[in-house]
């Protein structure tokens, strides 16, 4: 196939030239009905906001240009099939889970999964079997799954139908994906991979193995993260043993029937860009990330980590484009450095957690901004560093699952009580610390004092807590005391 082609993009160009008179939706009619929208987004952009029609194909049932774009994407990613997704990688992840398991079935996954995975379990009623990821006690971050732990989970749950793996984690850490795929397939389980942070693995040199190369069955790839497409656009990839027709049906259960052509076209041209130029682009991204790591480590007090974390098991590989910096040694929590960078230096990072900040380096970065980031970290150390005593540095908390997310989410016997009083109770909702959006509590889990302390501390440090019905996150919904489970 010719990766220089971009069928959806070309069809849109053709469509524009034909000056078709619109008596269909969207009602803004090429923007004429909404001049303020045109002045915000530009004429060119609004004109491309059109509906599915014969020359442009239909995402619900692709037969022409979208199908061609999917075939080109499948080839570029080394997949048997690729689906263009417009509901974010969240929708791709949900499709994987809904395809692989159903109510009453078990799915093995690391605890540091994205919320979208557990949300899918609330929808379909499957039971999560959590593999506790190793934690790096110094850095306070969750690592990958050890092979021995995966083996044990399989042994203890031979009836599980699938294993979900992060490749990589938010922090750039990869498990031994190839070995996990072998183990899973030997035991008749599917392998689903969350590659929200792994798009570039498919195109750059010297990158960790990709899900498709490792023989996984399905993978969700956030093209809009390192791939450069518009926010909310994403790819779902499948291997040769998965029926694309069935996956399409699952996608259509929840996907919009009015998919945005801005998103679809952005996937098409971003795939083309990476297929043609990805190798060089990501070489430059790696060079920038390496430079930043070296410069930040020269400051002293900060630790920008890289491939030295690799240990052959729980850190089987490391994403060289990730720039994560451990900040506790200058006496500041990651979230404090994250806030200072934004408020005082006009620099927005991807995340700040208790001990780390993460700067997202991508194909749009230039050296001059990296110099600003390094100098700002230098200046923060000069002006704000403190004694580190009293800093809480534990991030990962082992969950205790009492009932399935679906049972708990729909449990009739619940009450809302202040967080401080919830020790020992079973939570019926999510509690996430943003970023990175990995659940502290999921529906059906027992609340412990450790969790309460962590949540109160995170709130005090300025983390954004989300999930609960109570938007101020002062109370949590729990199963009523006298209910017995």
């Amino acid at each position: 196939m010719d990766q220089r082609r971009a069928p959806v993009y070309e069809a849109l160009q053709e469509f524009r030239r034909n000056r078709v008179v619109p008596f269909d939706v969207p009602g803004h009619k090429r923007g004429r009905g909404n001049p303020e929208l045109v002045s915000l987004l530009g004429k060119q952009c609004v004109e491309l906001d059109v509906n599915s029609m014969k020359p442009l194909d239909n995402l619900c049932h692709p037969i022409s240009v979208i199908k061609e774009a999917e075939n080109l994407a499948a080839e570029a990613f080394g997949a048997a099939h690729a689906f263009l997704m417009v509901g974010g990688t969240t929708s791709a992840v949900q499709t994987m889970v809904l395809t692989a398991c159903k109510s009453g079935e078990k799915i093995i996954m690391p605890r540091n999964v994205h919320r979208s995975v557990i949300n899918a379990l609330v929808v379909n009623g499957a039971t999560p079997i959590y593999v506790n990821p190793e934690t790096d006690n110094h850095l306070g971050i969750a690592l990958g799954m050890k092979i021995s732990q995966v083996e044990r989970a399989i042994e203890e749950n031979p009836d599980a139908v699938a294993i979900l793996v992060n490749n990589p984690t938010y922090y750039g850490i990869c498990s031994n994906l190839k070995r996990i795929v072998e183990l899973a397939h030997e035991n008749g389980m599917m392998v689903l991979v969350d590659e929200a942070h792994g798009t570039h693995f498919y195109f750059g040199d010297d990158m960790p193995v990709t899900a498709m190369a490792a023989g996984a069955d399905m993978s969700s790839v956030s093209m809009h993260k390192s791939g450069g497409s518009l926010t909310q656009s994403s790819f779902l990839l499948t291997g040769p043993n998965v029926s694309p027709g069935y996956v399409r049906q699952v996608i259509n259960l929840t996907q919009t029937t009015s998919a945005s052509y801005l998103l679809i076209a952005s996937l098409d041209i971003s795939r083309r860009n990476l297929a043609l130029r990805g190798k060089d682009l990501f070489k430059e991204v790696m060079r920038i990330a390496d430079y930043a790591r070296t410069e930040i480590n020269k400051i002293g007090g900060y630790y920008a980590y890289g491939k030295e974390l690799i240990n052959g098991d729980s850190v089987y590989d490391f994403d060289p484009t990730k720039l994560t910096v451990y900040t506790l040694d200058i006496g500041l929590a990651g979230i404090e450095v994250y806030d200072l960078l934004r408020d005082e230096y006009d620099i927005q990072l991807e995340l700040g957690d208790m001990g780390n900040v993460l700067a997202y380096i991508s194909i749009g970065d230039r050296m001059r901004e990296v110099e600003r980031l390094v100098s700002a970290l230098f200046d923060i150390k000069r002006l704000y560093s403190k004694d580190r005593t009293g800093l809480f540095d534990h991030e990962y908390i082992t969950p205790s699952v009492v009932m399935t997310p679906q049972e708990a989410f729909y449990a009739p016997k619940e009450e809302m009580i202040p967080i401080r009083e919830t020790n020992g109770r079973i939570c019926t909702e999510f509690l996430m610390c943003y970023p990175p959006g990995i659940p502290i509590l999921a529906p059906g889990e027992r609340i412990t004092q450790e969790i309460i302390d962590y949540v109160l501390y995170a709130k005090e440090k300025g983390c954004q807590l989300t999930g609960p019905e109570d938007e101020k996150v002062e109370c949590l919904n729990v199963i009523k005391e006298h209910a017995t489970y």
Partner: protein
Amino acid sequence: MEFWFTELHTPHVKFSVKVDKHLYSSENDLGRVDIFDSPEFGRFLAVDGYIIFTQRDEFIYDEMLSHVPMAVNPKAERILVFGSGDGGVVRELLKYQSIKTIDLIEINEGVVQACRQYFPEMAESLDDPRVTIYTENALRFIRHIENEYDLIIVDSAGFYGPGESLLTREFYGSCYKALKADGIMVNQHQSPFYEEDRIETQKAHKRIVNSFPISRVYQAHIPSYPSGYWLFGFASKKFRPVIDLDADAWNRLGIKTDYYTTNLHKGCFALPAYVERMLADVEKIKD
């Protein structure tokens, strides 16, 4: 033939200069440099379509960036200059025998080369043995330097583009650290007149106020710049710009200038009410 160079001072205001000749044009990832001859402003240099200096009025800008801090601390020996690859500021600084070294950081080597060719009378100052030119990123150059300079002059090209990093908190913080205990930093501060420039002036002022114990603003009239009215910042660790001026001492140096005088020095820190107000607005927002 009518041949005009036009610069947008705001989206709604144009400034046009009649041009005789387009002498030079080159473009790299740091921007496009053009040099023109004009009947009114003489030869002038533009980067990305914005006039950086003209032969006719550069003396005002260069003198105000150099002599104001030097008159407050005539003992300054080690000077660091950011930008100013045309050599104008260095030419003024070299009038002081007491200065021992001038380090000049100009990331855009193309500007230096073009100026050597088309503005030799300004750029010849760059060949003085006291001057060292570095072509590297300003932030990278300065962040590891501590307690080394008596005076830092920040001649940033503007608020956008490659010069943007010279207007950041991390940059001013690094300058503070690189200065000695009685160090001074001066910078060009844009014009307070047009709305968009004003907002940037305020932002920069706020960042400097947060980085230095003493931070004052002074003004000059520069006809080729937007609104013709220009501000400069004077920030220091110890010296106060007017009270600590020893006018007699400076006048004894016998330095010839065309704009700067010690009388003007005392007056240029007296600002119009609207400028005082816009600066005070951001000074209050201290951390």
